[in-house]
């Protein structure tokens, strides 16, 4: 028979073992070895501090009372873990990038490093953690009492044993949890010890389960039959409680300070979540696998009225299996100790960083740089906090009388801590969430939780029965367990529903109505978009030389050697001179703040640097400066951009101009060679015939006349060519002055036809529709006549029909006078059509002796007159269309 003394010895031995493990792991980590210390497996196992003594003992008790309902508190975390991809991953990333030390630090950091908020969360966490610690005390005490009952020789008094357990756990937590200051540093020793405890408690529960199923019930089949035959053998859950508890446990899983500690603060590598996402649910599944069998067997075996919370212990004991009972006791002890250690660590960090340090800083106003080691103060604050928290747990245990079922106490704690959820989730996913909103939401939820759940739950009449019955001052709608007169809801569901929903509503509404401070907005952007940028907000504008003060302060927080190393590294980074103190640049201050926040929390670090650097935090001016800087950069870059587009546009224009110049130069060359060619032909014949006239003796008068005529003709042709060239150059250079006059189209055409036909030697009949030609014109009549003459004489010269005829018709097309000249000849071949308006372009042989400038001149003239001349294909013969604007005619009417 295991006596109480043996039990105490085993406990002490176990604690010594844990210490050894923690010590060894710390040593190993310090030497840089022990890669497995940072493995996903250790991480997953450390998460299992979720399973406290409450779940170890209480789950069976809960199953014995209400069937499968116990499983809800495992299902919630399972759902959270499987949604790690968009939930926990973000939380862990933020925790790492902001060097967050606790859940209160996270919330305060998100909402502009507000210490008020941190204090609120801390108070909430302490109040929520107190019943939870009381729960662990209760479970250990109860398990002791079981062995005490079985051991008649022992001198066991419950009251004193609770005290000693609480004191022992406090010492344990102080020794374990406050060995080093940097809460952001990984506590490899503690985490490894917790992992070991996780294995022990799982093994213990599985061992009891296997013993119950195969040792007592006789196998899986009989076990199932026995389950169905038992008093809880039928499916029965309250829908409200089922969903509420799943939700509540999921919320608490994220918000509980100790879970945050192991999940975020102690996280070594984000990718561990990937493994934990399935491994931790598997752990939970294994933990709950044998809960119902143990409960059913316990109900069957144990006498009426025995406490179902302790079936895990009493069933093996009643079967005479003392060693299994001992193992189970160690399992429960493990659950309780690991939970208490981590909770105490997390809560003491919060209390010292957010309550003690700010008060201390206030009392030492402006003297953060005075000598004296802050580290001892912080460490002392943490140790005292642990003691105070344990004491609170002890008093809660005494107050509540230790009578309530384990599960319900645990749920009270869950409901309390879940009040953080709206501010947390809102802070992670909603940039519009503000500090005021978070404060109001938290307060509303907190007050409701205390009023509707915590106080009515305490025995000893803190709230008089009359208030619970009729409400304060007889206001029925304020009854703690039936708010707004809605009765009949389960108290837990009632509290969770009202507190969380009103909390969320208050948080959202106040957030929307209030306006965040600049720092809040910066932090909000960084939290919500943590995957986009992990750069921190620029807050400090340290311009005065306070490096020495900063150095002194940092030494007092980080310790002399780490601080010096940090400053030297910084100096080296700044200017490559490790011997000096670094300049207090904003970047440096920011890094320093983050480094310090790893030890004392974001808000405190912020305040301490603020004391030294002055201008405590980000002012609107600073922000504006930052914004201004970026705006300037933006403007500068946009200016650069404008300039570069301008440059590229100019370059393009230059390229175009160059191409044009090349083209023009080529055109000029071609033109010159054409002109010289055109000039040479008549000049050659003039020279030849004049030489004949000069040198040949005895030319007949007839011959002389013929040769002179040729010379005259060629000279005329030269003159004409030069006239045309002159004309063209005048037209092209735009120096031509137009001699505007008024006439009808008929008059212009009459003159043109008669002068064109007068000199010609070929017969050309001209057909005209005089009725359509009565169009008044206001233009340079001579120039227009020149165009017409040219077109008519072209027809006369080039029309190859036997009986050449030219049809001239005038229309009014779309606001323009259009005059078509269509002959009945063969027309211009398609390949030449695009060329006819070019200079010196001639179709066919040079039989008519034209210079090929006529149509080019026509085109230039028409352009000057605001119209155009174009070749009109597909008319049977050669067809040209002259178009002139009608503007004048309309004006004349």
């Amino acid at each position, binding site marked *: 028979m295991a006596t109480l003394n043996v039990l105490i010895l085993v406990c002490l031995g176990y604690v010594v073992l844990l210490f050894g493990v923690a010590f060894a792991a710390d040593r190993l980590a310090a030497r840089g070895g022990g890669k497995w210390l940072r493995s996903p497996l250790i991480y997953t196992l450390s998460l299992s501090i979720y399973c406290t003594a409450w779940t170890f003992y209480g789950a069976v008790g809960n199953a014995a009372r209400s069937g*499968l309902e116990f499983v809800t508190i495992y299902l919630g975390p399972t759902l959270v873990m499987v*949604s790690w991809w968009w939930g926990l991953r973000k939380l862990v990333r933020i925790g790492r990038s902001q060097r967050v030390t606790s859940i209160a630090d996270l919330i305060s950091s998100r909402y502009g490093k507000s210490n008020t908020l941190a204090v609120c969360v801390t108070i909430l966490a302490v109040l929520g953690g107190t019943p939870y610690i009381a729960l662990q005390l209760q479970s250990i005490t109860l398990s002791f009492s079981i062995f005490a009952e079985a051991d008649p020789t022992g001198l066991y008094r419950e009251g004193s044993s609770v005290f000693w357990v609480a004191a022992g756990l406090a010492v344990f937590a102080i020794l374990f949890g406050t060995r080093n200051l940097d809460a952001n540093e990984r506590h490899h020793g503690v985490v490894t010890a917790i992992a070991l405890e996780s294995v022990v408690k799982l093994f213990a529960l599985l061992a009891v389960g296997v013993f119950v199923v195969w040792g007592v019930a006789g196998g899986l089949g009989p076990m199932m039959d026995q389950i169905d035959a038992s008093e809880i*053998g039928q*499916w029965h859950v309250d829908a409200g409680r089922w969903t509420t508890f799943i939700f509540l446990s999921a919320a608490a899983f994220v918000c509980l300070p100790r879970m945050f500690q192991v999940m975020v603060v102690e996280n070594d590598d984000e990718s561990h979540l990937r493994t934990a996402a399935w491994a931790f649910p598997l752990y939970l599944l294994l933990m709950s696998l044998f809960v119902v069998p143990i409960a059913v067997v316990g109900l069957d075996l144990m006498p009426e009225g025995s406490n179902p919370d302790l079936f895990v212990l009493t069933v093996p004991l009643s079967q005479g299996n003392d060693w299994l009972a001992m193992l189970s006791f160690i399992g429960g002890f493990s659950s309780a100790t690991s939970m208490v250690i981590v909770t105490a660590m997390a809560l003491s960090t919060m209390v010292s960083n957010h309550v003690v340090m700010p008060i201390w800083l206030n009392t030492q106003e402006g003297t953060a740089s005075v000598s004296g080691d802050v580290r001892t103060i912080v460490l002392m604050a943490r140790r005292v906090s642990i003691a105070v928290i344990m004491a609170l747990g002890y008093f809660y245990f005494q107050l509540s009388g230790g009578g309530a079922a384990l599960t319900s106490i645990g749920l009270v704690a869950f409901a309390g801590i879940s009040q953080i959820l709206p501010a947390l989730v809102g802070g992670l996913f909603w940039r519009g969430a503000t500090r005021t909103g978070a404060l109001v939401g938290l307060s509303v939820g907190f007050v409701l939780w205390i009023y509707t759940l915590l106080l009515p739950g305490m025995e000893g009449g803190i709230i008089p029965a009359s208030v619970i019955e009729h409400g304060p001052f007889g206001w029925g709608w304020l009854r703690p367990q039936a708010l707004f007169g809605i009765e009949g809801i389960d108290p837990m569901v009632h509290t969770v529903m009202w507190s969380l929903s009103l909390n969320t509503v208050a948080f959202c509404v106040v957030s929307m109505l209030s306006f965040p401070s600049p720092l809040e907005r910066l932090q909000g952007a960084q939290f919500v978009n943590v995957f986009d940028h992990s750069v921190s907000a620029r807050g400090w504008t340290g311009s005065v030389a306070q490096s020495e003060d900063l150095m002194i302060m940092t030494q007092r927080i980080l310790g002399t050697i780490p601080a010096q190393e940090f400053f030297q590294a910084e100096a080296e980074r700044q200017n490559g001179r490790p011997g000096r103190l670094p300049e207090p640049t904003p970047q440096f201050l920011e890094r320093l703040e983050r480094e310090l926040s790893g030890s004392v929390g974001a808000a405190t670090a912020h305040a301490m640097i603020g004391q030294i650097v002055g201008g405590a935090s980000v002012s609107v001016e600073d922000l504006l400066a930052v914004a201004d800087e970026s705006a300037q950069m933006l403007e500068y870059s946009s200016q650069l951009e404008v300039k570069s587009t301008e440059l590229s546009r100019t370059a393009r224009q230059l390229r175009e101009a160059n191409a044009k110049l090349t083209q023009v130069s080529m055109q000029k060359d071609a033109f010159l060679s054409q002109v010289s060619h055109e000039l040479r032909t008549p000049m050659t014949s003039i020279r030849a015939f004049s030489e004949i006239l000069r040198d040949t003796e005895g030319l007949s008068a007839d011959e002389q006349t013929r040769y002179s005529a040729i010379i005259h003709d060629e000279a005329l042709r030269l003159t004409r060519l030069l006239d045309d060239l002159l004309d063209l150059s005048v037209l092209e250079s735009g120096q031509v002055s137009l001699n505007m006059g008024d006439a009808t189209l008929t008059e212009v055409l009459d003159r043109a036809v008669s002068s064109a036909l007068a000199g010609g030697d070929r017969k050309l009949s001209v057909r005209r529709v005089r009725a359509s030609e009565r169009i008044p014109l206001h233009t340079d009549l001579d120039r227009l006549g020149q165009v017409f003459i040219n077109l008519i004489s072209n027809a006369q010269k080039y029309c190859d029909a036997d009986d050449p005829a030219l049809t001239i018709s005038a229309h009014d097309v779309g606001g323009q006078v259009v005059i078509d000249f269509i002959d009945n000849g063969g027309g211009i071949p398609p390949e030449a059509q695009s060329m006819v308006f070019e200079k010196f372009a001639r179709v066919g042989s040079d039989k008519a002796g034209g210079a090929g400038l006529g149509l080019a001149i026509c085109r230039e003239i028409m352009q000057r007159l605001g119209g155009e001349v174009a070749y009109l294909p597909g008319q049977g013969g050669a067809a040209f269309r002259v178009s002139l604007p009608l503007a004048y005619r309309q004006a004349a009417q």
Partner: protein
Amino acid sequence: MSSPGEGKDRPSPVRPSLFLERQSYRRRRLADAARLLPFLGAAMLALPLLWPDESEGAQALPLSSAIFYIFACWGVLILISVIFGIAARRMAARENAEPEAETWRR
């Protein structure tokens, strides 16, 4: 903060193509699946609320069947998480291998 206004108003020189290559597409759908998983879990765990209950006078479901169902759901969730964990590890490995990881966040 890092690069204000970058890529917001003016098109970046290399316009990202409208469609992703097959692998990135798969990765995104995998992330979608990971997002949906908790909802699947919640739906599966809410289902027992519809089961007959002794209070309704109907033949209530035996507890052993309920245990089977719930633990089976649990197992399925864990299994899917394992598969997703493996896939996520491969994704991460590939992301580290190729630097264009930017494209695949959301």
